């Protein structure tokens, strides 16, 4: 063992208690990185390993319209040609179901499958193995939550559309169910052959039609493209104008893996932020540590060690501590993963994968932990170069070089490396730069705010109270770690209060939108023949409220634009413009609605229709796709091509959904005779029982009509907002935790000074109580400043996000802001005093003699 390592170990032995917080800081950051990465990597591995089972086929051909004969015959040709070995059909549709003997209803995502389903993977039921026979003859399989919601049991009957189905089993695990995919309701299976009898496939229903293809699997020839992807691409390209998409499981695998990698990288930036805060703490501790070690360094130089050797000793010490901290972080991450089910339930069952620490995550965590430790300590350690052994003879003022090139070059290299670490962790240079830049900017702002507040409290140095005077003086004293504590604690407060304020504003806004007179229930897929009866039924149920307004809707795709600035000949060209190619829900009417404002052009009004159909476009489409007044747009509406001229642009307030929000509105005329459906916005009763009865009656009489209860949606939105808030609060909590650690570290590093001061004060007659009060006030003032900095930042953040990103009216939350400041002050004061208890215990004489 070399001198450097031995010396480093001896130094750790002597000062590990003072440096303890150093590696706990690192540990917290590393633990977050390792835990987050491990879980997501486990999920990714599990998903990609089972990508085929997740997709449920080698290739899935999917369309929002019934799959045409041309597509079927092309697939059949592939089957006879040998590229496809098996074809199975499935249809997915969101619909309402209800028990036969009650008025409760629920929206479900129904999937009708054939006997060959699933082509890959296995479906497991609570009762055991799945077999298609369970579905045959009007059988259904449901998720356990539906049973609970509708108070049903296996064996009971369920009404789907106009048909009665028997519940024959409970789905435990279903292949092909996308992780985290948005779903309108819980999953339900029926036999493909039974679907037509339900009447759900009536015109205009929002079904998704699928052909599941199995491809025979010869081993891949080297250098050849995977046959499933090739087939999927060919099918997609051939039928692009038929609105058919084909996707191979390998493409799905690639996409899932990409998405998860991105999620992993972004989420672990949380850990990096905590780690960088820890790093800032490390940097400040190292600076104090070197100051305290000046004499030892001089002695080492005096007895023959070179500057390089001494630097190596302390760098090795940082490395060893960084290693220990990172290892501790891995242990913590392991513990967190083990304890996770206690807090969030059985995650493995939810994600359908086993998870645990992954080697890659552990290695990354260790590497980042060590890198951050070294990078943040190297600049303060460079001070070792300036320690002259002559100070052992004479305390002279060190002659500092005017400009320390080495130090600045190293600092620059360190900054570049940190950007590199951030970019590596984010998996993107741009994100790395933004994160680093953002961090520097926030740190700078907090720093300036800190300076301003420290100045602002300075008049208190003339206060009557001795404790307050001392506290204010100490907060402003150079080298007292004020900056770093303000940064760490302020940042934590900023995160927590900021997200809480946003949460408040978001939920308030949703609640406002659910105001007294606004509709809170949407009815969809109403057939023309059902209009009258349905209106009468709703009128009968909600009496005094306004009659439901029925809005005609059709679904259309833009298949061409011939205009001044843009010329798209075919749907393929439109597809090249991204968002323009999606399916739009369109309507026609002669009036402008209350939530619409004419921006440009002329509204058609009630007059007779012109020869060329007219269309009004939402102004967002104009700016995104350069569509102008007078341009001609071609629409595919149920296979019929309609060419219309753009005669106006409207701005639509999509938050006011009473009349719906339509990007595209036609002048009445072209679709009068076309088959279409209606939607209605209805105000339901307030009492849950009455609402349930109305929904039950509606679904009972009109089984094809879907009811979307906005109150339920609001609950879902609220729970999503709450979950996001919780997640960000956890981040803020971690930041605050490292802030507290930094605080404890800073207190213990500078304790010697306080001990000495306390000794002098005691000699001059100060009681322990006075000294304790002084400490309490000092840290209270510091905490109040940090809290104020964070709270003001949070107010600014929530205002800016509400105003510019979410477009919400913003309201201040004074209770939150003031409460946040007070709590921060109390917490910091308590931690500060508890960490300084030694100061009170020391006997003054011993302390003074030691000095």
């Amino acid at each position: 063992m070399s001198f450097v390592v031995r010396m480093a170990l001896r130094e750790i032995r002597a000062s590990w208690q003072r440096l303890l917080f150093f590696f706990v800081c690192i540990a917290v950051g590393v633990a977050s990185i390792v835990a987050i990465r491990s879980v997501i990597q486990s999920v990714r591995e599990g998903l990609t390993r089972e990508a085929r089972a997740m997709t449920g086929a080698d290739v899935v051909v999917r369309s929002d319209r019934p799959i045409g004969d041309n597509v079927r015959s092309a697939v059949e040709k592939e089957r006879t040609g040998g590229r496809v070995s098996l074809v199975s059909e499935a249809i997915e549709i969101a619909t309402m179901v209800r028990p036969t003997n009650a008025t409760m209803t629920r929206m479900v995502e129904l999937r009708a499958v054939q006997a060959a389903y699933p082509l890959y993977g296995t479906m497991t039921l609570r009762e055991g193995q799945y077999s298609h026979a369970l579905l045959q003859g009007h059988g259904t399989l449901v998720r356990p939550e539906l049973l609970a919601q509708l108070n049903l049991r296996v064996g009971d009957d369920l009404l789907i559309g106009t048909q009665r189905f028997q519940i024959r089993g409970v789905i435990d695990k279903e292949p092909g169910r996308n992780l985290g995919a948005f779903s309108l309701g819980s999953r339900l299976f029926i036999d493909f052959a039974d679907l037509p009898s339900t009447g759900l496939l009536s015109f205009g229903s929002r079904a998704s039609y699928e052909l599941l293809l199995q491809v025979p699997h010869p081993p891949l020839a080297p250098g050849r493209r995977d046959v499933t992807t090739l087939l999927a691409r060919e099918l997609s390209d051939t039928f692009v104008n038929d609105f058919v998409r084909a996707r191979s499981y390998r493409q799905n695998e690639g996409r899932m893996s990409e998405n998860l990698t991105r999620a992993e990288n972004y989420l672990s930036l949380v850990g990096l932020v905590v780690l960088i805060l820890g790093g800032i703490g490390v940097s400040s501790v190292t600076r104090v540590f070197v100051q305290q070690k000046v004499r030892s360094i001089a002695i080492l130089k005096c007895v023959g060690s070179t500057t390089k050797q001494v630097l190596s000793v302390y760098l090795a010490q940082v490395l060893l501590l960084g290693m220990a901290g990172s290892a501790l972080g891995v242990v913590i991450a392991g513990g967190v993963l083990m304890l996770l089910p206690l807090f969030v339930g059985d995650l493995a069952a939810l994600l359908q994968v086993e998870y645990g620490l992954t080697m890659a995550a552990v290695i990354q965590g260790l590497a980042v932990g060590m890198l951050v430790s070294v990078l943040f300590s190297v600049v303060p350690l460079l001070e070792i170069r300036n320690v002259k052994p002559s100070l052992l003879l004479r305390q002279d003022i060190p002659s500092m070089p005017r400009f320390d090139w080495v130090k600045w070059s190293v600092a620059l290299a360190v900054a570049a490396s940190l950007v590199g670490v951030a970019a590596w962790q984010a998996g993107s240079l741009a994100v790395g730069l933004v994160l680093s830049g953002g961090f520097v900017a926030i740190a700078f702002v907090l720093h300036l705010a800190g300076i301003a507040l420290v100045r602002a409290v300075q008049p208190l140095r003339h206060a009557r109270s001795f404790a307050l005077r001392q506290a204010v003086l100490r907060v402003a004293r150079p080298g007292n770690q004020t900056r770093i504590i303000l940064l760490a604690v302020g940042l934590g407060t900023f995160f927590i209060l900021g997200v809480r304020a946003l949460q408040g504003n978001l939920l308030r806004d949703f609640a406002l939108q659910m105001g007294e007179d606004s509709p809170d229930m949407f009815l969809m897929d109403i057939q023309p023949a059902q209009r009258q009866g349905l209106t009468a039924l709703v009128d009968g149920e909600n009496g005094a409220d306004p009659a439901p307004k029925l809005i005609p809707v059709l679904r259309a795709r833009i298949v061409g634009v011939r205009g001044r600035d843009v010329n798209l000949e075919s749907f393929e060209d439109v597809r090249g413009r991204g968002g323009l190619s999606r399916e739009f829900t369109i309507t026609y009417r002669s009036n402008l609605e209350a939530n619409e404002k004419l921006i440009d052009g002329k509204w058609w009004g009630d007059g007779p229709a012109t020869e060329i159909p007219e269309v009004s476009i939402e102004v967002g489409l104009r700016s995104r796709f350069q569509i102008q007044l007078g341009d001609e747009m071609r629409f595919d509406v149920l296979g019929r091509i309609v060419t219309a001229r753009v005669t106006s642009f409207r701005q639509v307030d999509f938050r006011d959904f009473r009349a719906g929000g339509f990007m595209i509105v036609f002048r009445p005329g072209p679709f009068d005779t076309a088959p279409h459906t209606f939607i209605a916005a209805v105000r339901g009763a307030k009492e849950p029982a009455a609402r349930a009865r109305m929904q039950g009656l509606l679904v009972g009489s009109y089984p094809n009509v879907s009811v979307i209860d906005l109150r339920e949606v609001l609950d879902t939105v609220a729970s999503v907002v709450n979950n996001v808030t919780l997640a960000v609060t956890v981040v803020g909590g971690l930041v605050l935790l490292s802030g507290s650690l930094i605080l404890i570290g800073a207190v213990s590093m500078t304790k010697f000074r306080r001990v000495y001061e306390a000794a002098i004060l005691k000699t001059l007659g100060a009681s322990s109580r006075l000294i304790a009060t002084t400490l309490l006030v000092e840290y209270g003032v510091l905490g109040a400043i940090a809290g104020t900095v964070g709270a003001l930042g949070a107010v600014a953040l929530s205002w800016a996000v509400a105003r510019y990103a979410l477009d919400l009216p913003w309201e201040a939350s004074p209770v939150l802001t003031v409460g946040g400041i007070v709590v921060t002050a109390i917490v910091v004061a308590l931690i500060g005093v508890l960490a300084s208890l030694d100061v009170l215990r020391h006997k003054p004489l011993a302390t003074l003699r030691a000095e």
Partner: protein
Amino acid sequence: MIELRGVSKTVQSGDHPLTILHPLDYAIPSGQFVAVVGPSGSGKSTLLGLLAGLDAPTTGEIRIDGVDITQLTEDGLAKLRGEKIGFVFQFFHLVPSLTAFENVLIPMEISGRRDAVPRARQLLEEVGLTERAHHYPSQLSGGEQQRIAIARALANDPPIVLADEPTGNLDSTTGRHIMDLLLSVRRSRNSTLVLVTHDAELASLADTRLVLRDGRPVSPDDSLRTAGATSSAGAGR
């Protein structure tokens, strides 16, 4: 052999330069015991620091065995101290985070000696502190700390030992013991000893005395002159 040619030291004191040591020529043959005496602030410790390469002179050159140490880099000086110079301070200057034994060990570990551990034990025995080997400096008395410092100074068998008032911080009895120890190890190793002291009695034990006042030699009691002429102490021996 230590040779000083026109060695001076000037520092900046506020706005004015302050000369602590005026240009000095001096030579110390190997094996000599030289006592540097003079009142506080006369430049004694500065001179000793210059000899050890702890500080750089403003002018002049210092040769140790023919090598001009003023031309050496910081690291070169560190190596020179590790090999040729043992230093004993008035305030002991032990590394507080290391035990007595480890403090003695350090210079040998730095120079990479293989027999560091047995030799450190032997040195501790020599200074009579075997049983205190694993105590930290804060657990040792002043005299004990100074004995550890002496053991440390002798660790690499340096031909030159520089001692800066080694008894200045000790009571007279302990000081006497320390001095006896220092002199006996010098005798047994025949090393050069330069001792800075206030103590006239101690100084009288030296082969040569260099008296400084206000940074200048004032009592040429041997072959000593101010700048301009080179002399060698005890040249006739």
